[in-house]
C-alpha cells in the first residue's frame, strides 16, 4: 500500500503539472476553470498537443502510442490534467473504441484507425444506448442483416454524446436475433456518420445545451470489414469498453477544482456583511465534502494499486458511486452560493449577474447525469452487493 508519493513520482507529478499548465493554451483551460464547455476545436487542439507529446493515449499498448506507465502514473496524469482544467482526450476515442480496436481489432483495422483515433483526426461517437435499452443494454434492438459483403443496419440509438461533431460511430447491433441469450447475438460495427441512411437529431438538455443526440439508421450499408472482432461476440467488447469507462470516473481532480472554485465564490459572496465562507453551515458543508474527497482520492489510489491485468478492481464501483455524488454535491453547493442570482441562467449583455452564477443552475441540472451514465448508481449498487458482497 503506497500512500505517499516517492520522490520519483513527485517529480513525475511536477512534470505533468508543468506540461498541462504551460503547453495547453490558457484560454482553453480558463473555460474549464469558469465552468464552460470546451468547443470542438478546443478538444481537437488539446488532444493534438497531448498526442504530439505522447500524452493522449498513455494507457494504450506501447506500439500504438502507449507509455507503459504504472497505474499510479496514469492516476497522477489524469488527476493533474483535471486539476489544470485541461479538456481530457476524447473518451470515445481514447478510453472506448481505441482500446477495443487494440484488443479485438484486426491488424488492418488497427493500422487504419488507431493513429487517427489517438490524434483525433477521427472523432468517434458511441452507438450503444437505445430508447428501450439503457441500463439493460443487452436489450438493444438495432439490427444488422448480412447482404453479400455488407451489413444493412436499421434501428435507433440515443444519448449519443457529441454525435453532432462525430466523423464515425461505433455501434452495437443485433446480428443474430435467434440467439438464446440476448447477449450472444450482438456485434460491433463502425461506420462514418455521413453514410447514407444515418440521420441525427440533437436533444436539448435541461441546461439549454446540446450534447446528446438521437441517431437513426435506415438501411445503412456497412462493409463487412468494418465489423470489429467476431460476429455475435460484440457483448465481450461492450463489457471490456464499459469496464474501462468506470476507470477514472471518480474524477477527483475535477471535483477538487470545482470545490476550490466554490471556496473562492463563498469568500466573495457576503450575507449580512459576512463572507459565506465564514458561515459555519457553509464552512462545515465544504469541510465534509472535502474530507470525503480526500477519502475518495485515497480509495482511488488503493483501487489503482490493486488493479490486475487491466481489469477494473471491483471496488471501482465505489469510485463511480461516491465520485458522482461528490461532483453533484459541489455543483449544488455552487447554486446555493449563487442564491437568488442562480435563476438568471440565460441573462444577456444588459445583466449584472456574474457569469459563474448564470451557469450554476444549468451545471447543477446537467450534473444529474453523472449518477446515470456509465452504469447508473443503482447498477453500481447491484455490482457491489452482487459481485463484492456476494448477496
Amino acid at each position, binding site marked *: 500500500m503506497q500512500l505517499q508519493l516517492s520522490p520519483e513520482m513527485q517529480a513525475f507529478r511536477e512534470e505533468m503539472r508543468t506540461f498541462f499548465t504551460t503547453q495547453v493554451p490558457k484560454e482553453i483551460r480558463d473555460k474549464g476553470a469558469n465552468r464552460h464547455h470546451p468547443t470542438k476545436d478546443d478538444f481537437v487542439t488539446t488532444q493534438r498537443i497531448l498526442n504530439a507529446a505522447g500524452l493522449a493515449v498513455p494507457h494504450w499498448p506501447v506500439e500504438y502510442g502507449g507509455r507503459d506507465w504504472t497505474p499510479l502514473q496514469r492516476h497522477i496524469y489524469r488527476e493533474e490534467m483535471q486539476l489544470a482544467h485541461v479538456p481530457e482526450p476524447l473518451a470515445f476515442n481514447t478510453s472506448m473504441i481505441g482500446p477495443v480496436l487494440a484488443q479485438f481489432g484486426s491488424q488492418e483495422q488497427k493500422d487504419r484507425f488507431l493513429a487517427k483515433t489517438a490524434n483525433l483526426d477521427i472523432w468517434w461517437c458511441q452507438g450503444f444506448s437505445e430508447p428501450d435499452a439503457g441500463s439493460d443494454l443487452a436489450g438493444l434492438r438495432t439490427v444488422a442483416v448480412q447482404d453479400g459483403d455488407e451489413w444493412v443496419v436499421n434501428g435507433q440509438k440515443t444519448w449519443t454524446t457529441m454525435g453532432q461533431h462525430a466523423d464515425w460511430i461505433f455501434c452495437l447491433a443485433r446480428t443474430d436475433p435467434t440467439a438464446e441469450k440476448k447477449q450472444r447475438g450482438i456485434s460491433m460495427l463502425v461506420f462514418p456518420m455521413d453514410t447514407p441512411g444515418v440521420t441525427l437529431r440533437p436533444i436539448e438538455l435541461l441546461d439549454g445545451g446540446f450534447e446528446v443526440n438521437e441517431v437513426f439508421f435506415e438501411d445503412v450499408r456497412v462493409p463487412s470489414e468494418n465489423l470489429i472482432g467476431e460476429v455475435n461476440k460484440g457483448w465481450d467488447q461492450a463489457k471490456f469498453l464499459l469496464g474501462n469507462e468506470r476507470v477514472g470516473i471518480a474524477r477527483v481532480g475535477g471535483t477538487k477544482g470545482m470545490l476550490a472554485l466554490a471556496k473562492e465564490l463563498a469568500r466573495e459572496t457576503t450575507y449580512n456583511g459576512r463572507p459565506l465562507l465564514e458561515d459555519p453551515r457553509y464552512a*462545515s458543508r465544504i469541510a465534509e465534502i472535502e474530507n470525503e474527497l480526500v477519502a475518495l482520492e485515497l*480509495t482511488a489510489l488503493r483501487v489503482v494499486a490493486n488493479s490486475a491485468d487491466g481489469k477494473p478492481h471491483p471496488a471501482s464501483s465505489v469510485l463511480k458511486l461516491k465520485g458522482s455524488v461528490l461532483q453533484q454535491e459541489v455543483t449544488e453547493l455552487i447554486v446555493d452560493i449563487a442564491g437568488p442570482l442562480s435563476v438568471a441562467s440565460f441573462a444577456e449583455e444588459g445583466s449584472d449577474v456574474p457569469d459563474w452564477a448564470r451557469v450554476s443552475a444549468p451545471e447543477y441540472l446537467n450534473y444529474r447525469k453523472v449518477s446515470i451514465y456509465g452504469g447508473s448508481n443503482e447498477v453500481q449498487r447491484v455490482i457491489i452487493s452482487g459481485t463484492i458482497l456476494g448477496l
Partner: protein
Amino acid sequence: MRRKVTKTDPGFDEKVWTQLAEMGLLGLPFAEEHGGAGAGPVEVAIVAEEIGRVLAPEPFVEAVVLAGGLINRVGSDAQKSELLTALSEGSSIPTFAHTEIGSRWTPTASAVTATEAGDSWTLSGVKEPVPHGARADVLVVSAALPGGGTGLFVVNGDASGLTRSGYRNIDGTRSANVRFDSTPAAPLGEGGDQTDAIERALAVGRIAYSNEAVGAMDTALRTTVEYLKTRKQFGVTLNKFQALNFRAADMYMSLELARSIALWATVVEMTGGDVVSAGDRARLLTSRAGRHIGKDAIQLHGGIGVTAEYKVGHYTARLTAIDHLLGDGDFAADRLAAKVGDYPTVDPLGAPYA
C-alpha cells in the same frame, strides 16, 4: 465469551492481557530499551484494527496508545524505563485521566488543579469518565497549573487521597469517577504546560480508534451480509430483497472510504506529518461511517440486532463509544471547517502531508 468477560470486573480478560504482553503487543510502539518492540504506527494500527474486528474488550488503545504514548512522548528516561517496561510486560496498566464532566474533548484541564508545595506536587478535583480508571495501576493525569496551562502528572493507583468508583460502560468496557484530594503526583517529564502534547496524543488516539472502528465496521458488515444470505422471510432469503442489498452496498462504500482515510492518517503519523489534521479527518469520516454501518447493521438484522445475546449490536455499541471518547464527527468537522478557507485544495499524497 465476551459477554461473560465483560460482565465482571475489570471488564476484560487478565489472561488475554498477559498473552498480549507475551506477544510483545503492549510494548509495540516503544523503544527496546524501555521494554518495547520499537515498531511504528502501522503495526499499532494493525493491532487496533484486529481488536476492533473481534471486539476485544482489552484496553489496547487506552493503555498503550493514549497513556503509553504520552509517557513515551513526554516522560523522563526514568519514567519511561519504569512505566513503559511495566506496561510492556503486562504488570502495570496505565490510563490517561483527562476527561472531565463538561470538558468535551478539549486538550486542557480545569476541574483538576495542581498545587506545588516545595519540591512536590498534589492534585485535587475530579476526572470522569476515566477509561478502566478503577483497574488502572497508574494514572497519567492532566491538571490545571497554578500559573496557567495544563500539566501532566503521574499518580500511582495506591496514592493517598485517591478515590475511584468504577462502573460498566455501554460497550462493556469500564470507566471510573476518579477523585483527587491533595493526592501526591509527580510531573510527567519536565513538567510545565503540556497542552500541545495532549492535543497530539488525542490526535494519535483518534487515529488508533479509527483503525479499531474500521475493524469493528468490517465485522458488522460481514455479519450483516451473512445474515442477509441465510435469514429467510416470506419463504426466501433476505438477499432476494434489493432494498436490503442496496443498503448493504452503501455500508460497503462507507467502510472502504473510512478504511482509506484511517490507513492514510496512520501513514501521516508514521512520516511525521500533521497528525492533528489527519486525526480530525480520520475522526470525521469514521464517525460518519461508524454511525451509518452501526445503525444499519442492526436495522438489517431486525429485532435480534437489538438483543444482547446476538453479537452485531455490541459492535454498534463499541462504535458508539469510540465515536464519543475523543471527539465526535461534528467536533472534527468544526475543527476542519475553521480552516477550509486557508488553502484551495487538499493534497493527501504530497509531502509532508498538508
